[in-house]
C-alpha cells in the first residue's frame, strides 16, 4: 500500500532510518544513488545482499532493491532475501539488450520504468505490478519525468476516446498487448499504480507530479544529496500528501537549504541519458 507515498533511495541503514522517520512509505536500497552512478561511471549492478539485509533489519517499512534490466538471476537473489519489491531499473547497466525479466516467474512484485504508455503496457504485459516514470535519474531535473507522465496519462486519455474498432491499430502503434489496451480504454487508467521517478528535487516537484496524475513519488538523489536530508524528506512527503494545497507546499519549502545541484538535459548528451535503456 504505497499509494500517496514517497519511496526514498538510501545507501545504508542510517539513511533508511532517517527516511522512515521522515515519513517514507518505502525505501530503495542501493549502493550508490543515481547522481553518484552518473559521476562514477562503470557498470552499475544489484546491491550487496548484506547491505540490503542491514536495511531490512533497520526499518519496518517495505524495502525495495534494483536489478539490471533482464538480469533474472539478480531478481532471484533479491527474492530469496524476501525483498518487498524488485525494481528492474534503467539506472543500473542493462544485462540484456533484448529481453526484460519475465516477471510472472516471480512471487515478489516488480516495479518498472516507462517513458510512455506503450512501454508501460509492455512492462505490465511482462508482469510488472507497478509502473514508474523513468525521468532522468540523478539529474535533479524534473523535465523528463514530466514528459513521461504526460505521455503516459495523455496516452491513456487518448485510448478512452477510441472506438473498439480502432483499438487493434492503437495496440499495434503502441506495440502493446491488445488485451491490455482494451482494458485501459475501458477503465481509463492502468491496471497497476503509476508513480513518478526521476529528477524530483523539491516539494513543488513532488506536488507537480501528483497533480499531473502520479499516484506517489520515488525520490532518489534529491534527498540525500541535499543540504538537510531529513527536513527535505519530510517536506517532500508533506507536498506529496497535500499536493493540491499551495499554502502547505510553501510552508514545507521554507528553510530547506540548498537542493541538490541540477543538470540541464542538453549537458548530458545522448550517451548520458538513462531513460533510453529498456524498450
Amino acid at each position, binding site marked *: *500500500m*504505497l*499509494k*500517496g*507515498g514517497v519511496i526514498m533511495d538510501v545507501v545504508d541503514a542510517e539513511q533508511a532510518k532517517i527516511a*522512515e522517520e*521522515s*515519513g*517514507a*512509505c*518505502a525505501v530503495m536500497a542501493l549502493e550508490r544513488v543515481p547522481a553518484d552512478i552518473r559521476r562514477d561511471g562503470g557498470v552499475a549492478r544489484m546491491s550487496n545482499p548484506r547491505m540490503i539485509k542491514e536495511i531490512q533489519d533497520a526499518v*519496518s*517499512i*517495505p524495502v525495495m532493491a534494483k536489478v539490471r534490466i533482464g538480469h533474472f538471476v539478480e531478481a532471484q537473489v533479491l*527474492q530469496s532475501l*524476501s*525483498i*518487498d*519489491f524488485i525494481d528492474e531499473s534503467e539506472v543500473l547497466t542493462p544485462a540484456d539488450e533484448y529481453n526484460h525479466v519475465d516477471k510472472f516467474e516471480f*512471487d*515478489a*512484485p516488480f516495479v518498472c520504468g516507462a517513458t510512455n504508455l506503450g512501454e508501460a503496457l509492455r512492462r505490465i504485459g511482462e508482469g510488472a505490478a507497478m509502473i514508474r516514470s523513468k525521468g532522468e535519474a540523478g539529474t535533479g531535473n524534473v523535465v523528463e519525468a514530466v514528459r513521461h507522465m504526460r505521455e503516459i496519462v495523455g496516452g491513456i486519455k487518448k485510448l478512452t476516446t477510441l472506438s473498439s474498432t480502432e483499438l487493434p491499430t492503437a495496440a499495434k502503434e503502441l506495440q502493446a498487448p491488445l488485451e491490455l489496451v482494451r482494458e485501459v480504454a475501458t*477503465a*481509463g*487508467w492502468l491496471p497497476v499504480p*503509476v508513480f513518478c521517478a526521476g529528477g524530483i528535487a523539491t516539494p513543488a516537484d513532488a506536488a507537480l507530479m*501528483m*497533480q499531473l*496524475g*502520479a*499516484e506517489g513519488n520515488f525520490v532518489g538523489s534529491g534527498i540525500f544529496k541535499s543540504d538537510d536530508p531529513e527536513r527535505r524528506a*519530510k517536506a517532500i*512527503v*508533506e507536498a*506529496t*500528501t*497535500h499536493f*493540491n*494545497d499551495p499554502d502547505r507546499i510553501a510552508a514545507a519549502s521554507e528553510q530547506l537549504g540548498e537542493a541538490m545541484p541540477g543538470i540541464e538535459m542538453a549537458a548530458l548528451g545522448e550517451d548520458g541519458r538513462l531513460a533510453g535503456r529498456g524498450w
Partner: protein
Amino acid sequence: MPDAAGSDQPASAGGPRIGVLAVQGGFQRHVEHLTEAGAEPVEVRIPADVDGLDGLILPGGESTTITMGIESAGLGPAIQAHHAADLPILGTCAGMIVAGREHLGLIDITTKRNAFGRQLASFEDDIEVEGIVDGSIRAVFIRAPWVESTGKGVEVLAEVREHPVAVRQGTVTALSFHPELTPDNRIHKWFVNACHK
C-alpha cells in the same frame, strides 16, 4: 484513477458523508467503494475535512507514514472528537494499527505490525466476519497486522491462524485486511448503513 487537480471531492450523492483519511495509502479504492455503496465520500487531509462527517475510514498504507501525516496535519484531535461523538469509524490494515491504543486510542487493542510477514507472505483467505457480513468474504492480507491484545469491551469478529483480524468496540471496527481491494462491496455497504443518522 488518481484525482485530477482540484476535483478530489465528489459531488453529493445524498447518502451519509463519510471521510476517508487521505494522508497516504489506499484511500482511492475506499472512495470508489463508498460511492458505489451510496455514500458521499470526502477525502480527509486537514482537520476541517472532518467537520460534519457521519463516519470515517482509516485506510491501509504504511502506518508509520500515516501516523506522521496525522501528526503533521494536526488531525489527531479532530479524529478523536469524531470518535467522542460516537460516530462510526472503520480502520483497515494500517488503519487498524492507527486506531489502536498505541496511536489514536480509538479502540482498546494493541497490534503487531507486519505480523504475517513481509510482502512475499501476503495472502488471501475466505473468512467470516461475525455481525458484519452474512457468509464468508474474500479477505486480502498485505503485510497485514493482527491484534495482539484486546481490552474490555472489544469483540473479536474474526480470527486467522488463531489471531484476531477483525475487532469491534462501540462504534469502532478494525480489520487487518483490505475490503476495498475486492469487488465485493458488502463491508462498505454495512459501514454506510451504520453511518446513516
